[in-house]
């Protein structure tokens, strides 16, 4: 079973040579604020800010809602979300979901990536995140996300600093060593 999962990476082909032609009308008003950190079209190049381009719209919406209602805490994000209406949060989710990924995936150390794939298989990540970590509904797409962002979130779940996961992620990562989490993050970040 495990040997098959390497094939999934091949199935995921990111759009190449295409750039969304954004117009003022396409861009939700509030998205201007987002792209200051998350980059144009949500293609963040600063690893401390997650890539939002191509994310699950429902995940973006629910995270904004969690920030607004203090279920997820991040000092810069919380005030941003507090100012948003439900409609604006939905529109932002849809907008960033529709943007193509433009960044390059981070090339991790092959041995670390291989170890990370094994960790992912054993933890049954794909059962929720789907094959290739492409996400579904409220479960985020995490393939190609910044390594340091992924690792930061895994550690936050493990250490109880992020608790808006209904216990699911906490239960998965609690028994993984920090080295396993680094390998897992390297593997996920390396998936196209």
């Amino acid at each position, binding site marked *: 079973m495990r040997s098959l999962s390497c094939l999934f990476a091949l199935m995921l082909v990111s759009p190449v040579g295409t750039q969304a032609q954004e117009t003022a009308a396409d861009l939700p008003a509030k998205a201007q604020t987002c792209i200051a950190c998350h980059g144009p079209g949500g293609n963040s190049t600063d690893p401390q800010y997650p890539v939002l381009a191509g994310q699950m719209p429902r995940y973006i919406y629910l995270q904004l809602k969690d920030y607004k209602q203090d279920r997820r805490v991040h000092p810069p994000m919380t005030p941003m979300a507090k100012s948003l209406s439900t409609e604006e949060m939905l529109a932002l989710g849809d907008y960033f979901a529709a943007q193509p990924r433009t960044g390059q995936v981070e090339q991790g150390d092959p041995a670390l990536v291989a170890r990370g794939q094994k960790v992912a298989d054993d933890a049954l990540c794909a059962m929720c995140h789907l094959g290739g970590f492409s996400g579904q509904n409220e479960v985020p797409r995490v393939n190609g996300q910044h390594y340091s962002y992924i690792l930061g979130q895994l550690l936050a779940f493990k250490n109880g600093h992020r608790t808006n996961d209904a*216990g699911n992620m906490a239960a998965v990562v609690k028994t993984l060593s920090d080295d396993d989490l680094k390998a897992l993050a390297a593997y996920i970040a390396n998936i196209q």
Partner: protein
Amino acid sequence: MKQHQRLKALSSAMFLLGASALVQAGGEVPQAAATTGKAIPESVKAVTQARLTAAEKQDKDWLQVNGGYAQTRYFPGKQINTDNVAKLVPKFVFQTQIMESMETAPVVVDGVMFLTTSYNHLHAINAVTGEEYWHYKHKMGPVTVYCCGPNNRGIAALDGMVYMATLDAKMVAFDMKTGKVMWETQIADPEKGYSETMAPVAVDGKILIGTNGGEYGIRGFVKAFDAKTGKLLWTFHTIPEKGHEGVWATKDATGRDMKRNIEAEKAELAKSGGDFYKTLGGGVWMTPAVDLETNMVYFVVGNPSPDLYGDIRPGDNLYTDSIVAVDLKTGEYKAHFQYLAHDVWDLDAVSPPIITEAAGKDGKKQKVVIHGGKTGHVYVHDPKTLELIRFSEAMVPQENMWTLPTPEGARMLVGANGGVEWNPMAVNPTLGLTYAANLHQPMTYHVEKAAYPGGEKLWLGGAFKVIPGEDQWGRLAAVDMNTGKMTWKADTDEPLMGGVLATAGNLVFTGEGNGHFNAYDARDGKKLWSFMAGAGVNAPPVSYTVDGKQYIAVAAGGNTQLNFKRGNSVLVFGLPD
């Protein structure tokens, strides 16, 4: 990539969106719902109640996903048999546009096959040539919430209509000839975690349907809709408002102690009250069996919510992890039997029940209802009371049952996927055997306190993980329903997920996640034929006859839950011309 209504303004980005959706979400097509193509031939007759009632007594059509109302998945045709199955060859491959998990069991009517894909595409094709007649693409509502893959397991047909339930929890009725949508109704609220992957059953002018959502804190049900109009006729809630605490059972169906802390549970119930029935889960994943002689509808009920954290849901959590019978006409409760009270392992009841015959407690042959459990046992019940007549020996290894989950993880076998997952079993009535596709996945069970997150997030209350270094494998087990002993077993490299077909040719068919699709001798388990499908064969096979030639069909689309290689095809096999 499910919400596209609000994106209409982004027309410049639509091509890109379509392209990325195809890649990221495995092929969901973001256009509006539409049926395209042409009508099926005039020679195809409506599927009347009389045809459905006699479905399992004829060797021409495959009229229901599990063969007929008894769900034996036994095809009486024997043109393909143990003597010639080695010569079986592919006749055609029907490729869908959806590269995602396929769990569909095709329905075949007068040479026309109706098959479904992930994300609710429905195709009507020629069952001999693969030529497509019509194709329906479902436009998802703004919210779809579902566990374990965007699957669909097939349709029901009745009186010139076919029916499919959707991920956004709708029932859609189609004109069988053209695929035109005749009516559509909302079964339940997807915002609260309800979704549909099961095939409905059409009977007595009604369309019966259960629900997914046991991983989201739903309140499960089976509903009956009027087949002609879509009007709701009755609802049976799998979680009663009162009395779900049950009898405070301390032992499972096999008599083993479940290590419950009954005093603590009673104290919690006294403190918090029983209002959690609204989020106690109890999904019904698979198609019910129907006994038209008694008007009994049999189905199995899934896990309580949250799956692994039981402290906040004291009591037996009736009717989770149970087989239940209700009255076909009214939905009124008739009987139940609970396999596992207060489940904290997600070892629930999923595989569809089968009505067949086996020795009763007195040794005399009688009608029975059987179910293959995630626990690894086949359970044999009295059809009237659902009293347990016997349970089979464990088909896969069990260890440390019932060790309670811990925050650090506690090892227990079987793993949380089974035993027998949703995989439909099959029966060879002549041999008195039932065939079950099993998984062996050593796991640790982890509990994590978690309050109800509102219906919009997965709510497991923990996790289960496979154990590094411990082998996983599958087992096709032939169980003697009269004794509960395994007559034979055929082990596979991969845990088995998909389902089984038995035929009068003394054959048993099942697929593997590595792409092998196999035929076994029903008497001794000898593998007689195998075909490499190129993607996981994780769907229930079916059989049918057109113009005097028998065919075997199966989907090869891989599986989300076990991450088996995805594909997009239905393969059809027959003997050489």
